[in-house]
Structures are given as structure tokens and as C-alpha cells.
């Protein structure tokens, strides 16, 4: 309820000021535009540094770095929860693992099908298991029963069931210590880059406290990026860039989408929560509370590749992007959990509680309100401020000054356009250089996408949480317009 109240009251105050105190509202708009400029600059510095790290880490020989570290005891458990995605989506992800430089004989794969998706999903999993299973240390198909009391149908309940099945079928029979098992919880379309497992293993073995850490790769949506429509591309890279910025601010980082964690920690926490939408970020909060605040996310600065959100039609894509971002921004549901847990766990240091609570509240408040203030509500005084306001120098200067700040902030977008080209896989032969130009020009859409696909879904989610109109888990459809190749970023 709190995020919704904060966001709606911010917008309401802004609108009320525009009518009754337009001068004050205009001052706020100018100050806010300046804040946006400097915030963009601050984030851009982080993004640029992270880009350099990612490119560096992609070039680095992680196997060589592991040479002097004992790592033969490490088992990678990769779980692919899925719903009704087609065989090709799942198969590509498995091929990605096999094409990586890590020995598959130390990797266990769990294909987590759901009963509610029907026999076809099970058949898909079994087909993949049959085709690729023997190349792995183990490959199990789990079949999450529907209708288990206390569960919400969705990824959280499915992947938790799969993790427990993996313990029962793979780890315990072989007496593998949970501390030696690194679980990669992947979305079904996650294709690893060649050194993902090496990079992850190195970070796990060198982490200050590996059993009190989750490991976060950068989700790039490169699988189908060249085939995705313009809106999908902008949103995909915007999401990736946000994660890259967060990677340089680990104190603000929570797990998101595909992530990794030791089986020890996972088992201690009772796996992912089964009755919520945002199980990917909630697991971090579960673990933070479970270990009395002694838990962190280690940024890998190494990517995994996933699908940009694409539907067969333009409007279908628009709808899917909206629904996907509504699901992501529904992560505001964590706030109530965090505050409740913080209130009831005196062992977590107060400063840590305050810091995390502030970061979370500020994050969801700003994503829902800032774009709307900057690109819509902030200009209201000009239209509703009345004759007296319209005859002031301030009303004439408001658009000029605010626009100047926002135009300068657009330099951040220009930088983003450049950065995206570094991370993009090689252009397929069927596209001309014009497509490259479009990949740059697409960033002009950001002011629109920020409002339509970030702020509005954010407000939508927060209102739902306020009113108790809770969301179920919406499965992002994975549509493959053309088959993918293992992604490789462009060389610097």
C-alpha cells in the first residue's frame, strides 16, 4: 500500500499545485528537470564503467583464473522452469550450455514442467531430456502438480518444486554437499555466454562469504534483438542498462530474473517463495532476513542472453511489453514483506534496515512518478496555471529552462545508443546498415517508453497492491520469429 500512496500522492500534489500554486509547481518542475539531468549523469557514469567491465570480462580467460583455485568439487545445477514454450526455445538454452566452455559433465539440468500446462509441456521436456540429457552430469524432468494449497500458479512455485526434486533425485542420492552446488535459476530462454559457468564459479569461490551471496549476471535480451520491433529493442536495452547500473551499486542490487545462488542458502530459505509474482527478487529478501541481514548480491558483470519481448503483431508486442513490465514493477509487493520482516527481526542492523527500506521505496516511487512528472504533469502549470501565472516571466521561461536540462540529459541517451552497439550481437546478413542506424535512432523513443512501459505499469501495479487486486503470474510468451544463434557481442 505504501508505494501506491507515495506515488499517487506525489502526482496528486503536483497536479494540485499546478492549479492552485502554479509558480511553486513550475519551480518544482525546473528543479526536477535539473535533478533528472544530474541523476542521469550519475547513472551514466556507472553504466559506462559497467560496460567496460562487461567487455573486459567477456574477453577475460576465466578458466585460466580458475587454474589455481580448486573447483572440481563444484556442481552446477541449472533449473529451467517453463510453461508452454516451444521445444526450440528450451533446446536453444540447452545448446547454449553445451556450447559453453564448462564441462557439461559437472552440470545438472532440471527441466521444470508444469502440470497446468498440460501433456505437451511434459513431452517437450522429455524430448529435450532425451536429446541432450546424457551429455550432462544429470538431467531430470520435474512435473509440478497444479493446485497445491498455498501456492500461486507461476514460476515461483514451479522452480521451488523443481529445486526440491533436484535435491531428492540428484543431490541427496549422490551425497553432494549443498555447499558445493551452485544453482542457476534461469528463465527458459536464457542462453549463456561461453564463460558464464567459469565466471560464476570464480566469483563463488572467491566471494567473501559465498554461502551468504547470490550471484547476478546481466540480462541482455540479445537472442532475438535484431528481429525484435523497435519498442521491444528499446525496452530490452533499457532494462539491461538498468541492471548494469545496479551492478556498480551492489548495495542496491537485488536478484532479478536469471540469477545464481548456492543450494545451501536456497535450501535454508525453503527455496523460492511459492505464492508471489516476484519470486526472483523475493529470494534475495528471504535470504537477507533468514541470515539476519548478512546477505548480499555479487554482481558478475557478465551477461546471459534472453529473448526481447516479441509478439507476432506490433500491438501484441506493445501489450506483452506492458504486461511484462507490470509484472516486473509488481516487485513493489516486496516492500510490505521487507518492512514486516525488518520490524520483526531485531538482529538485522538498524542502518541496514533503513537503507534497504529507503532504496526500495525510493526506487518504486521514482520509477512510477518521475517519467510522468518530467514528460506530462510537470508541464501542467502552463495549461491550468491561469491568466496571472501565464503573464509571468516564469511561465515563459519554464519550457525553455526545463527543456534545456532535459536536452542535456538526452546526452545520456546518446551514450546509451553507443553502448548498446557494443553489446549487440553481429548484425545478421539479411539486414543492411540501415538497421544499425535504426538501432541508434530508436533511443529517441525513450521519453515515450519511460512513461508508457515504466511509469504507467508501475502505477498500475501499485494501485493493484493498494486495492488488493493482486496479480497472478503472467507468463511472457516466447515467440521465435527466426531461429537464434548463440549470441556474441560486437568487438570493441
Amino acid at each position, binding site marked *: 500500500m505504501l508505494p501506491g500512496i507515495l506515488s499517487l500522492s506525489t502526482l496528486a500534489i503536483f497536479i494540485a499545485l499546478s492549479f492552485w500554486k502554479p509558480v511553486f509547481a513550475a519551480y518544482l518542475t525546473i528543479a526536477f528537470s*535539473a535533478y533528472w539531468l*544530474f541523476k542521469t*549523469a550519475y547513472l551514466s557514469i556507472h553504466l559506462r564503467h559497467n560496460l567496460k567491465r562487461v567487455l573486459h570480462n567477456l574477453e577475460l580467460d576465466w578458466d585460466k583464473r580458475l587454474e589455481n583455485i580448486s573447483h572440481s568439487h563444484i556442481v552446477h545445477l541449472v533449473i529451467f522452469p517453463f510453461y508452454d514454450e516451444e521445444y526450440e526455445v528450451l533446446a536453444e538454452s540447452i545448446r547454449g550450455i553445451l556450447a559453453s566452455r564448462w564441462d557439461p559433465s559437472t552440470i545438472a539440468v532440471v527441466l521444470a514442467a508444469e502440470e497446468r500446462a498440460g501433456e505437451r509441456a511434459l513431452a517437450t521436456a522429455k524430448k529435450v531430456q532425451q536429446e541432450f540429457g546424457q551429455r550432462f552430469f544429470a538431467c531430470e524432468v520435474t512435473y509440478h502438480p497444479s493446485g497445491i494449497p498455498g501456492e500461486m500458479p507461476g514460476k515461483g512455485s514451479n522452480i521451488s518444486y523443481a529445486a526440491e526434486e533436484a535435491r531428492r533425485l540428484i543431490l541427496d542420492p549422490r551425497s553432494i554437499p549443498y555447499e558445493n552446488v551452485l544453482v542457476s535459476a534461469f528463465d527458459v530462454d536464457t542462453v549463456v555466454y561461453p564463460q558464464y559457468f567459469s565466471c560464476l564459479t570464480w566469483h563463488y569461490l572467491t566471494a567473501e562469504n559465498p554461502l551468504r551471496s547470490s550471484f547476478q549476471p546481466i540480462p541482455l535480451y540479445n537472442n532475438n534483438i535484431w528481429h525484435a520491433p523497435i519498442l521491444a529493442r528499446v525496452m530490452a536495452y533499457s532494462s539491461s542498462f538498468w541492471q548494469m547500473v545496479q551492478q556498480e551499486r551492489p548495495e542496491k542490487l537485488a536478484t532479478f530474473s536469471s540469477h545464481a545462488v548456492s543450494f545451501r542458502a536456497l535450501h535454508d530459505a525453503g527455496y523460492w517463495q511459492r505464492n508471489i509474482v516476484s519470486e526472483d527478487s523475493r529470494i534475495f529478501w528471504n535470504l537477507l532476513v533468514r541470515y539476519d541481514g548478512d546477505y548480499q548480491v555479487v554482481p558478475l558483470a557478465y551477461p546471459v542472453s534472453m529473448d526481447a519481448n516479441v509478439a507476432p503483431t506490433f500491438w501484441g508486442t506493445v501489450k506483452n511489453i506492458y504486461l511484462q513490465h507490470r509484472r516486473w514493477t509488481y516487485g513493489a509487493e516486496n516492500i510490505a514483506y521487507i518492512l514486516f520482516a525488518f520490524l520483526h527481526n531485531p538482529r538485522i542492523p538498524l542502518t541496514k534496515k533503513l537503507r534497504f527500506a529507503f532504496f526500495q521505496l525510493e526506487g518504486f516511487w521514482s520509477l512510477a512518478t518521475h517519467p510522468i512528472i518530467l514528460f506530462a504533469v510537470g508541464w501542467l502549470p502552463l495549461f491550468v496555471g491561469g*491568466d496571472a501565472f501565464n*503573464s*509571468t516571466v516564469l511561465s515563459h521561461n519554464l519550457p525553455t529552462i526545463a527543456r534545456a536540462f532535459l536536452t542535456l540529459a538526452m546526452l545520456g541517451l546518446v551514450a546509451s545508443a553507443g553502448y548498446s552497439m557494443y553489446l549487440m550481437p553481429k548484425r545478421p546478413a539479411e539486414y543492411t546498415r540501415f538497421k544499425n542506424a535504426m538501432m541508434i535512432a530508436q533511443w529517441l523513443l525513450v521519453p515515450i517508453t519511460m512513461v508508457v512501459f515504466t511509469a504507467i505499469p508501475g502505477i498500475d501495479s501499485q494501485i493493484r497492491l493498494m486495492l488488493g487486486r493482486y496479480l497472478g503470474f503472467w507468463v511472457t510468451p516466447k515467440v521465435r520469429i527466426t531461429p537464434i544463434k548463440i549470441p556474441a557481442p560486437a568487438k570493441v
Partner: protein
Amino acid sequence: MMRPLSPRRRRFYLFALTALFFISVPAALLYSSGYRYKSGFGLVKTGGIYLSVPYDDAVVSMNGEEIGTTRFLNKSFYIDDLAPSMYAVHVEREGDHPWYRTLVVEPQLVTRAEVVLIPESPEVIRLTRGGTTGSTTRSLSATLYDSYLKAFATAATSTEIRKSGTTLAATIVGGDVYVHWTDEERVPQDNFCAKPSSCVQSFLVEDGPQNSYSVSFFGEGVVYATRQGGIFFSEIDVRRTPVSVALYPRANADVRVVDDRLIIKDGNALYQIESF
């Protein structure tokens, strides 16, 4: 191996950008409110002039200095950074009466004016009931012609018009033409204000020796008929010097505005003055 941004560097960036924010915001707020630094005077509050010139190729000057020429896509001028004072604005275009206005600029306020250019020789066309259209005559259907004639059957000593969300009224009292700002809830527009902070509800548009007997709103002003001098157009503006020109200088002619057309009746004949 490349390390993440160190907390120290991050703190440096944060402090540097925060400092820039706290420096730039007050500066931006002062600037946007009209504050300017003037050598010898320190920080002074300035005002501005917003001039709307809905014509192409009009040359705009202020205090004798040319500011610019209007073009198809550039028909307004915002002149800011003006010290509070009086400014003589002059707009001229070939073939039109020049437009002069003395505008008072006050601190932190914008003085607005809309330029009205009247042709030096407005085209007068005689209207006929049927017949043929020539270079100085226009043939109208009997119905239309009769509707124009009918408009003159009733007196026009007062009129109202809805403009910019408010109602303006024009009345003739003792042979003089007054315009009124009827909406007491709203601050009058700039043309009712000698300076932005000092506005009137009504003022005289024509107070000369001539006796007016009919008045109508037309374009950005009023047209009125006088017993001595014929038909006049005057701009509605309390500031000096509003445009006032004789459109049809023949005594006892009368005028009406019908369907936005300026119709003149002189004896039994009807004329139309082309729009401007």
C-alpha cells in the same frame, strides 16, 4: 581483473553532481523568474514582452532597433531580459498602416501585445442583388443580399462577442464607443491593461468629436459608424497608440458584421470591405 567502481569514486561523483545540482537549481530558478545580473546594479528583476504578429514579412523594431522580420513559421517574438521601463514597439509592412505601441514592462511580468495591421487602401466592393460579378462589384443571391439588408433594420448601439473564453462588450454612450471586459472573475487581457499590473474593466475606443451610432466587433477591434466621418476601425487596446483608421469615409454610412463579413450600407447601396 577490472574492479567495480570504488565506493570512494562513487562518493566523489555523487558529491560533485550534488554540488552542481545545488548550484544550478537556484541559478535556474532565479533566471527563470527574470532575475539578471546587471553590472553596477547587481541582481535586478527583469520583465519581457511577447509580441504576436500574425503576418508574414512584417518588420518588428523596439526603441528604434530592428528585432526581426516575421516569417511563415516565426510569427511571434519573446523579448526577455528587459529592465522595467517603457518600450516603443513599431511594426511595419509594405501596404499596411504602421503599428505603434508603447508597452510598459514590469518586473517578472510579461507584457503581451497582438499586432494588427490594416491595409492602407482596403478593398471596397459593391454588392449587387443578382447581375454579374465584376472587378469592383460582387453579385449576390437575392436571399443573401436581403439578409445583409435585413441586418441594418435593427440598431447596433451595443454588441457582445465571445473571445478567448470571455465575453467582450462594446457600447455607444453619448456618441462615444466603449469596450468592456465583462468577466469580473478573470484578470483582463493585456489590451485592457496600461501596464501588466494595472488593468481596467472598460475604456473608450472612440471619444473624439464624431458621433458614433453603430458598432460591431471585427477582427481584433471594433468597427463603428459615425455621422460625420463614415466608417472606422479601431483596435481594442488601452495602451498608446491603438490603430484607428477610416475604412469608408462617407458621412451617414452604416456598418454591420454579418457572418464575419464587413458590410457597409451607404444610402441604398451595399458594400463589402475585404477582410484584413
